[in-house]
């Protein structure tokens, strides 16, 4: 901790005093090559094709995410070029209208869901363990599962275009246009099911990122001294946990309406199309900041390093990120300023949309101040950062304009908005990502770039971008709406569109050149020397290209920055090598970074691929309309999920791992507060948001939708009340059992309590089945349909909780518990509590509905 490196945030006020002078002795040095061989044998992917399918390593999966995202970016870019070709002239008679609708819908869908989000997930997966000082992400199998869900879902979405059945209702899929009546084809189902399948990867990544940042940092790295990238990605991940569930819920509801005629969004039967808009934008606006934050994190990382100084205002930037995370959830209605919401409600969101510019401005000025403080080096990443400034500042300003209600009433749904969103997304995401890729390429491929190509690509992209989109603001103000294919009556728009189209092709050429440059660097670049940017962060404290295990020994208080490259490679850091032949990384206390235990991570396995295929079979059955086949997919998924638990835990107590001289830590089997438990809490945060969104839906329809109150309900019967009480009582008893199963685990009573838990789970599910039988016809009215969903939510969690009870029972039977090992009980307790809590809330809600009407 004595080395004060240039980018050490401590150098800037408010300073962080070293309260807990945590010190851990260094391990004796060993031969670096021997250590490398020992670790690489454990951590590298299996050879050949098998390795491609079984890899769970964050380096492999992260890169694969980024490469796949770039392929989808290229496909989305080709679609953009088709749009620009079509709009270049008034008559544009080159695409027919139906195809044009598919193409612009797919352009938006691909860029948002198949490029931007996966790209940032890939960057986070690949970078986080390196910059935080760990060997892998917290849940390697989850990385792989997310990737395969993304790959399969994305492929289905893109292939639909080949078969001419691509979604064609616009990327925000407004109902009623996207309902069965107005979109009878499979097109809308492709969007709803495909995107939901892909979003499994978003939730998976969000859980992993959260847990990795909180618990897989270098020993002694307190949260307050973490690299800013950690804060940005923590904000991103938490936003994903809270932001995606409304979209997932909305997609489920709309798909259920399309498939089974439950009328959530249909006015005649108590639904409301505005509910879709609320759910969509409740996701859709945070989404913009989910995309922006990692990019801003890259800027906050790269700018100080290429300015040879430290970031100005570390604390202020962390506060700004926290502010953005929260405020961005108070903006969604600014996409709905023209739907007829009263002015005062618009005013709240207008003010919040303006206010969110403040934390953004704080970061912009902090970056400029940082450059002022240091000496800016005009390397290639810095050029892209200049591209960011030249673009994003204007995008932010037009964003403030659009936040103003009266102006929004004019500009909404015109090409002004198209220009604005491209300024924000390309300025705020693509330029920083290009900077990030060119910055981290030496770490990815171990090579230095080929001279000249990168600069040429930059200028083509920059000029092409502004040529395409700058005048498009005017096109919009002249009245050109979004999503039209021809404009025969409006010759005044033609010169503007023609200019946009010509420069659009220039920009496309720039991106192609960028891709070419990356390939050239990978193949023909000269070998880069270590830490080529002379950066202080831990991602450069390793040989190039990054080895499969990142660090031969893990960074700690004595080796906390890139200057420790050689000592770490010689094994002087924490937990050197792989003495047990396992993939191990250090787990720390979330706040202080004090080492807590050693996590044994998963090796290469086919299970993630199999699991995503099982989930995919469910989605495939739904998409093809073979609804009777869908339960098979559910059973396959349950089977795959069960297999995940099979290879967790151990049937004996292990001796503690020697992390450093005088520091031995237990393996995670012998700890209660494991990564898995933190991950479950993160998952339940997302799950709770999903439930809250559902409650919002109930409240919204009750208060706002026309055609309420609902018709007389037939559920208020004594058998139904009894069934509900039995279900709740069984869940409560199951909760007791889940705790008793843990406390009595060393006695035979442990297995008995697990059995009791399983029995109560089955009993509660049976009672829920009775309730399902007694429901009103869910196709009759939105209230009844929502009750069906509420019940389905309880059944789903009942199945999960019962499986966890079964897992706990298996733990007891197979000797996977002991005084030191708790097995699956802590996870079961959390799910059981969640099941009971949400079910009780649902019961009270429906009781209130019945009593009050």
């Amino acid at each position, binding site marked *: 901790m004595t080395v004060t490196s240039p980018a050490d945030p401590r150098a800037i006020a408010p300073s962080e005093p070293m309260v807990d002078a945590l010190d851990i002795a260094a391990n004796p040095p060993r031969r670096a090559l021997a250590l490398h061989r020992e670790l690489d044998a454990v951590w590298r992917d299996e050879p050949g094709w098998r390795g491609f399918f079984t890899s769970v390593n964050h380096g492999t999966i992260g890169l694969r995410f980024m490469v796949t995202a770039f392929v989808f970016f290229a496909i989305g870019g080709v679609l953009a070029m088709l749009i620009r070709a079509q709009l270049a002239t008034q008559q544009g008679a080159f695409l027919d209208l139906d195809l044009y609708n598919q193409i612009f819908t797919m352009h938006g869908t691909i860029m948002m869901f198949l490029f931007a989000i996966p790209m940032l997930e890939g960057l986070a997966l690949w970078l986080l363990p390196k910059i935080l000082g760990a060997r892998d992400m917290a849940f390697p199998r989850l990385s792989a599962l997310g990737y395969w869900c993304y790959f399969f879902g994305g492929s289905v979405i893109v292939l639909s275009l080949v078969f001419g059945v691509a979604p064609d209702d616009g990327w925000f899929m407004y109902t009623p246009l996207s309902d069965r009546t107005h979109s009878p084809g499979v097109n809308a189902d492709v969007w709803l099911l495909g995107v939901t399948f892909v979003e499994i990867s978003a939730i998976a990544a969000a859980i992993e990122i959260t847990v990795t940042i909180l618990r897989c940092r270098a020993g002694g790295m307190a949260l307050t001294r973490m690299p800013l990238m950690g804060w940005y990605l923590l904000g991103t991940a938490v936003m994903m946990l809270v932001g995606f569930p409304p979209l997932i819920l909305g997609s489920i509801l709309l798909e259920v309406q399309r498939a089974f005629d439950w009328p959530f969004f249909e006015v005649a039967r108590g639904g409301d199309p505005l509910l879709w808009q609320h759910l969509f934008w409740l996701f859709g606006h945070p989404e913009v900041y989910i995309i922006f934050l990692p990019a801003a994190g890259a800027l906050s990382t790269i700018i100080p390093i290429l300015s040879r100084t430290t970031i100005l205002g570390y604390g202020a930037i962390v506060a700004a990120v926290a502010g953005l995370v929260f405020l961005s959830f108070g903006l969604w209605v600014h996409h709905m300023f023209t739907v007829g919401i009263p002015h005062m409600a618009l005013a709240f969101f207008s003010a919040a949309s303006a206010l969110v*510019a403040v934390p953004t401005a704080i970061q912009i000025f902090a970056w400029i101040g940082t450059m002022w*403080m240091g000496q800016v080096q005009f390397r290639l990443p810095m050029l892209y950062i200049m591209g960011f400034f030249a673009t994003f500042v204007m995008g932010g300003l037009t964003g403030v304009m659009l936040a*103003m209600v009266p102006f929004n009433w004019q500009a909404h749904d015109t090409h002004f908005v198209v220009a604005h969103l491209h300024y924000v997304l390309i300025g705020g995401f693509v330029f920083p990502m290009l900077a990030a890729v060119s910055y981290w390429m030496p770490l990815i491929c171990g090579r230095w770039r080929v001279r000249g190509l990168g600069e040429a690509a930059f200028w083509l992209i920059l000029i092409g971008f502004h040529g395409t989109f700058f005048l498009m603001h005017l096109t919009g103000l002249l*009245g050109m709406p979004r999503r039209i294919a021809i404009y025969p*009556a409006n010759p005044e728009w033609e010169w503007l569109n023609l200019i946009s189209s010509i420069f659009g092709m220039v920009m496309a050429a720039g991106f192609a050149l960028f891709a070419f440059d990356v390939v050239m660097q990978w193949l023909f670049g000269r070998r880069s020397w270590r830490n080529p940017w002379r950066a202080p962060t831990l991602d450069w404290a390793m040989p190039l290209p990054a080895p499969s295990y990142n660090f031969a020994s893990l960074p700690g208080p004595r080796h906390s920055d890139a200057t420790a490259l050689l000592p770490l490679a010689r094994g002087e850091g924490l937990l050197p090598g792989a003495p047990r032949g396992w993939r191990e990384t250090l787990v720390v206390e979330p706040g202080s970074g004090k080492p807590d235990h050693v996590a044994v991570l998963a090796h290469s396995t086919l299970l993630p691929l199999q699991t995503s295929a099982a989930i995919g079979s469910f989605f495939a059955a739904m998409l093809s309309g073979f609804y009777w086949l869908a339960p098979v997919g559910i059973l396959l998924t349950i089977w795959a999920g069960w297999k995940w638990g099979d290879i967790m835990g151990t049937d004996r107590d292990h001796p503690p791992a020697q992390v450093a001289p005088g520091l031995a830590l237990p393996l995670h089997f012998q700890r209660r507060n494991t990564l898995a438990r933190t991950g479950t809490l993160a998952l339940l945060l997302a799950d709770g948001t999903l439930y809250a969104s559902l409650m919002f839906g109930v409240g919204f329809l009750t208060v706002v939708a026309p055609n309420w109150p609902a018709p007389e309900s037939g559920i208020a019967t004594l058998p139904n009340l009894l069934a509900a009480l039995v279900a709740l009582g069984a869940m409560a008893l199951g909760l007791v059992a889940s705790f008793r199963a843990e406390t009595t685990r060393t006695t035979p009573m442990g297995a008995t309590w697990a059995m009791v838990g399983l029995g109560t789970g089955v009993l509660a599910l049976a009672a829920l089945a009775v309730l399902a039988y007694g429901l009103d016809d869910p196709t009759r009215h939105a209230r009844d349909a929502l009750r069906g969903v509420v019940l389905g939510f309880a059944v789903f969690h009942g199945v999960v909780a019962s499986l966890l009870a079964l897992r706990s029972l298996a733990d007891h039977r197979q000797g996977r518990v002991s005084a030191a090992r708790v097995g699956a009980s802590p996870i079961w307790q959390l799910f059981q509590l969640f099941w009971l809590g949400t079910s009780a809330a649902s019961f009270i809600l429906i009781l209130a509905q019945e009593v009050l009407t």
Partner: protein
Amino acid sequence: MLPVPLLAACDGPLSTLEPSGPAARDVAILWWAMLAGSTLITLMVGAMLVLAIRNKGGRASERHWIWGWGLGFTLSVLTVLVGFSLWLGERMLARADDALEVSAHAAQWEWRFIQPGPDGQPVATLDTLYVPAGTSFDVVITSEDVIHSFWVPQLGGKMDAIPGHVNRHRLRADAPGVYEGLCAEFCGIGHNFMRFTVIAYDPALPMPDMSEAMAPFADNQAEMLP
């Protein structure tokens, strides 16, 4: 040099920059003000960036960059702007007074209007709306099938037509004339062609002949009028 051809390019039948009613004019004023402010801010940030790059190392204070510029400057500008915009927005609301009421019922892909005819009786028309110039009127906007959006850029902002909802939109045309309108929300394959015309007539003169645009009343449109 740039603004001159751009200003000349602001004309057009759907241009928001050639306002012909109070709502559109207020927005245009807001736009020009915001454009001027944004240009200044962009130039200022650009200048700061250039200076920061040319400055070869030195002290920078959080107080100056973050609290001064990031928080103080930004928040002051935004407070003024939000206040001004809300005040403008309040002026555009359809308040409960006795403004003239017409109805716009959107369907894939046409606009059905009901407005007072020559003898004071309501007249139904297709894709053409007749209103008196110089008088505020409320368009009562409804939809038959999917979401559409009513927009006459030269008169004012847009308002969505949503199934199950009745939206009220206040507009006024200052002078007699023909104003182009369109559906601004994507509504399917015919979205391109869902245009309409607003004819503002001089109330002092005899009413224009509406027979060309006349259409039978839609089934449920009259009921939707409040």
